[in-house]
């Protein structure tokens, strides 16, 4: 006969025992459930957010992105551009040895100076005059040109990139020949035709790097020309005002975030149709959305503060580590490192910064040249050219408020024959320990195209 006390004791002992060995499986189940719930919540939140973006008319997938591209581009000059490109490609094939004969970083050859490539370049440019005239005769349009693209993947744009690069190559040759002939009006026209080419492809995300390339070639030509007595003061003012702000704007930055995100989400949505793809997890999409929203909320594009804030945002996770972990529990099969897939906003900002630096360098150099034309001497300090209308923004916008690091270096040669202006990459002054360079890049034994991009000599 068992007493009631013993009985209770036994049951209590049993329960304690059961509790210990049942707890771990229960905890695992609870863990998995909480992960599933968290994932569902984030998925729901992302869907609401995507719907909101779609309601605002912003692209959230390839379909809406295609609609946006169709709406923001014009078919007005599309056919003409097709013909221009066909002709340019034909000429490029016919004259392809020119690619090796005249390099992008080659110096301009002034009038009455022998130029080895001149016969072939002149023939090429002469033959290309129908094309140049066609570009000049295009109807003015605010909108970029519609392209017959099938937007499945973003790389579908590459054929057009090559084509427009060929057009820009033709126009820089036109500029070189005009410069060699001493024809300022024709050279000025070549610059404005490059502007026209740029505005034809001023579509947001996929063409950013192409635009940057065309812009770079144009800026290098302008800067090189400042080493010679070529332009008049009025012409310099005209160049100073070339297509200002077309590329570099708050709207363009926001659009570029939106558009890349749309491609990204479309890839995810497609991947989600295949089982066992971890990339498109709700946590990841939610994090992308939160990050892009915060990145777009940061004001003051083009300033150093903006760069720093974006970098800080990227360093700190938006979603929070623990929340990310809970959501990652039920991702099958892998938890993917967030950094691996996230669009890098710092990386996306880079072309904007490069372009801003490039423009600052050119415009300040033009200011110095104008100063020299007006007063017959080089300015002593960089603020002097404000007397010829240069705004201080041009050379201070990328200076660091915090460290006082300057974004432009300036010095006048000892014999007063030339002035040198060069860029100091802003990130060099902040992030890394290396101090901004006090010397122009040409004295630091850099590569030729690097020097072309970072330095200008004004005579």
């Amino acid at each position, binding site marked *: 006969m068992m007493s009631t006390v013993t009985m209770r004791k036994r049951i209590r002992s049993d329960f304690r*025992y059961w509790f210990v060995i049942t707890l771990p499986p229960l905890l695992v189940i609870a863990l998995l459930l909480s992960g599933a719930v968290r994932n569902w919540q984030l998925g729901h939140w992302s869907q609401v957010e995507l719907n909101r973006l779609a309601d605002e008319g912003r692209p959230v997938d390839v379909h809406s992105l295609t609609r946006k591209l169709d709406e923001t581009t014009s078919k007005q000059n599309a056919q003409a551009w097709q013909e221009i490109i066909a002709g340019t*490609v034909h000429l490029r094939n016919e004259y392809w040895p020119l690619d090796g004969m005249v390099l992008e970083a080659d110096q301009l050859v002034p009038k009455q100076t022998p130029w080895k*490539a001149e016969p072939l370049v002149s023939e090429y440019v002469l033959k290309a005059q129908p094309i140049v005239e066609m570009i000049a005769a295009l109807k003015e349009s605010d909108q970029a040109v519609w392209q017959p693209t099938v937007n499945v993947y973003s790389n579908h744009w590459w054929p057009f990139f090559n084509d427009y690069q060929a057009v820009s190559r033709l126009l820089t040759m036109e500029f070189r020949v005009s410069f060699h002939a001493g024809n300022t009006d024709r050279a000025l026209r070549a610059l404005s035709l490059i502007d026209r080419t740029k505005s034809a492809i001023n579509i947001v995300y996929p063409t950013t790097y192409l635009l940057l390339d065309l812009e770079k070639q144009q800026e290098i030509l302008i800067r090189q020309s400042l080493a010679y007595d070529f332009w008049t003061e009025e012409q310099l003012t005209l160049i100073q005002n070339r297509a200002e702000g077309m590329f570099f704007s708050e709207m363009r930055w926001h659009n570029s975030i939106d558009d890349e995100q749309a491609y990204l989400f479309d890839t995810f949505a497609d991947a989600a149709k295949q089982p066992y793809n971890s990339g498109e997890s709700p946590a990841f999409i939610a994090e992308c959305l939160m990050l892009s929203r915060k990145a777009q909320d940061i004001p003051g594009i083009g300033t150093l503060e903006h760069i720093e804030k974006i970098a800080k945002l990227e360093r700190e996770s938006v979603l929070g580590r623990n929340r990310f972990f809970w959501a990652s*529990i039920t991702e099958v099969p892998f938890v993917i490192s967030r950094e691996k897939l996230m669009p890098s906003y710092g990386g996306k900002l880079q072309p904007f910064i490069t372009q801003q630096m490039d423009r600052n360098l050119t415009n300040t150099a033009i200011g110095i040249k104008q100063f020299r034309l007006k007063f017959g001497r080089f300015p002593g300090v960089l603020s002097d050219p404000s007397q010829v209308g240069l705004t201080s923004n041009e050379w201070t916008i990328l200076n660091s408020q915090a460290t006082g690091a300057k974004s432009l270096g300036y010095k006048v040669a000892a014999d007063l024959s030339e002035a040198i202006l060069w860029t100091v990459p802003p990130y060099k002054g902040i992030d890394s320990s290396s101090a901004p360079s006090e010397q122009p890049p040409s004295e630091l034994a850099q590569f030729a195209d690097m020097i072309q991009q970072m330095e200008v000599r004004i005579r």
Partner: protein
Amino acid sequence: MNKTTSMNHVLFWKEARQVTPLIAMLLGVGAILIFLWSGLTLATSNLAYAGRYLPLVLPALYAAGVGAVQIGQEKELRTIGWLSSLPISPQRLFWTKFTVALSGLAVMWISCGLLMALIAASGMSDKATQTGIGFIEVGDVIYFPLHSLFILACAMFSSWKFTNTFVSLLAIIPLAFIPLIVVSMVSRILKNGQSQLLLEQSAMLTWAVTALSMILLVWLTYRVACLNLAPIDPPSLAAGPAEWLKAWRPTRHVATPTEPFQFPISSLIWQSIHHNRWALAGIALLIAYGATQSVFVARIDFQDQLTISPLGLSALAGYLGVCWLGVFAFTGDGSQRGLRFLADRGASPTTVWCGRQWIGLCFLSCGILLYAIASLTMLHRREYMIGEIPSVATVAMVSLGVYAVSQWTSQLIRILAASALIAPLLSAVAIGWFAFAAVELNAPLWLLILCGVLPMLVSWSQMRRFMDSHRYWVFYLRSLGVIVPMMILPILPFAIDIARLPGMSNARRLSLLKEMQRFPGPVGALWELNRQVTPWDGINSDDKISGAEAETIRQSKASGTSERFRLNELDGSLPHIVHANPFVVELVLDSASFAISALRQSPADPEAEAVAEQWIIDLTRLGHGLRLSDRWQDQTGSDIVEIWLTQTLSSSPMNSMLERDFAKSAIALISDREGRNLARRRASLLSWARGEFLKRSSDSGYVLATDWGGDMSSTKRLWLTRPLVDRFITASLRLIDEGSVGHSTIALRRELHEIRFGSRLAFEDGPYSDRLRVGPSNWEAFSIDNTANYPAMNWYADWENEAAKLGQQGKK
């Protein structure tokens, strides 16, 4: 003397009988695995790689298990005492066992050599070599037998040393790493002296250390064995204070619960923890090590020491831990007899089964929780993390699957050593199969989980037979039967998916082939357009040449316009069938466009007019020659040429010259609807019969069906590509039928879009919609790239009506 010899025979016979099942099982499993491997479509190189190592791994597994079979089992069954009581010297007993074990190893190596030869002969290794990995290096192959000898010594030592078989198996792991540890220590010391240890030097070092430690271990084993087999010392009769005190010493603590349990299952669980605590502790250690350490494999600063390091082996340790946790469920020491005891007393099989599994699941859960904590730490310190780590859910599912297969193995195979070695093999195969089914066959997760749990259900249903030791064919048949659903269920959804696809019936296929034969054969000479002749031919594009040099080179060669593509050879004197790469046709059209632009800029220039006229003439001949071709890609090329001609002839400056002969013959070409329909139909059928979308052409102008239907796994693509092409041809033929009588083609174009893109792209955004199809109101949509990449994209678009209109104007 005679007596000893016969005793020797008997001893050898007995030992050989003990070892044979292990050899048979390992070779059997190995042969089955290699058979399965050869049947798999080797989609990933990892599978091929693992498969080739299998014959090398089997002898090592034998070496690890033979100690447990020869000595552990005898200890467990207490026959070792009986053996030592025989008038045989311990030395002879030891050497007999050792010799038989060595002979077994030799048998294993010979059999595995044969297996490898079989693999090489059957061409399976070619399959593996194709995936980019060369055959295993010779140095490795020679080292493997030495290492298996060493493992054998370790196994012998640990099974003589430990009474408990499970513990002795666990103890092999640290022992096996001794040479590695020594080598890494020695090479570290040597490294301090010189900059880098040469490969030959480190190989020699490894050899030397392995051989030396093996000799040392054999000597130690010999000593332990002799001690084990020696007569037990008689109880000491020593007197004195120590002996007197002994009587007063408290008894050794035995872990019995202070209060007995209410429920029988509690006692069963208690028993399954305590019947072999050391083994359980070892397994727990392995799991804990694997769970906490393997996650750091993803750390960027550890990447260079992944191959053979404690960190790299942590995942393996965790895996082995889970396998042996499963094996522990039914083949822990003496469990067989314990279960028989319970069965004889009427314990419910379900209760006993639960009691056996619960503790395993509890330990497994602890491991998963540890992994969760470790991965949380990892995610928290993100700066270290690269790539990806398995999520908690994945680890939970995989370890549950491994556990399930292992416990099933241990119920099936009674010999502990065998099940402990075969369980990891079978679990790996099962997990590999599920992973393949998931990635390549898109098997749904719930189905895989179900398949993973099946072995648990089987071991539960077989519990009564197992407890009663009813091991007859019904038991084996039912146990092994689970393999069938595990193999078939994951394939089912995929198979149904493929079977449901609208394919092409044989009757339809035959009728198409018959129709194909009705077309007349080729008429005319073949002419190929696949390159351009530029004045610069022979100059390397990387050469930097001066203008003067370029000038001399150019003047020595003829430079024309259409002559660049040798189009003047198509002089119209005899019909030519043209084969062309559409992308070369694009170059031709670029040049022709330039001529038209030049004429537009200077309309009065007779030279420009003559050049433009010549281009129209040449392109008309080109378009005509392309139409005569029976290749699909040439129909595309012809479309491109005809669209260009239509567009050019209907706009200035050409639209004022329509009365001229060159324009008339061009219009005759583009307005010939009948001829175009016929050419398309013929080319569709013939190129389908030739498999044009399935293989690359010599001039790489074909559009391949390799990315049709959207994203899918490579296995699915293997099955789907041909049906997709069949569907595409069927839809295209119907498109010709409908389009040639002027019916709406939108439904068929939707189908073409669906075949080409799957659900990847909305129809309205794709090339078969009106957005990108070419017509007078949409000339700017004409992209040669698109037309060449998306077959039939511009068939029966508006440009054909415009071309017909031009033809009617000419007739008036």
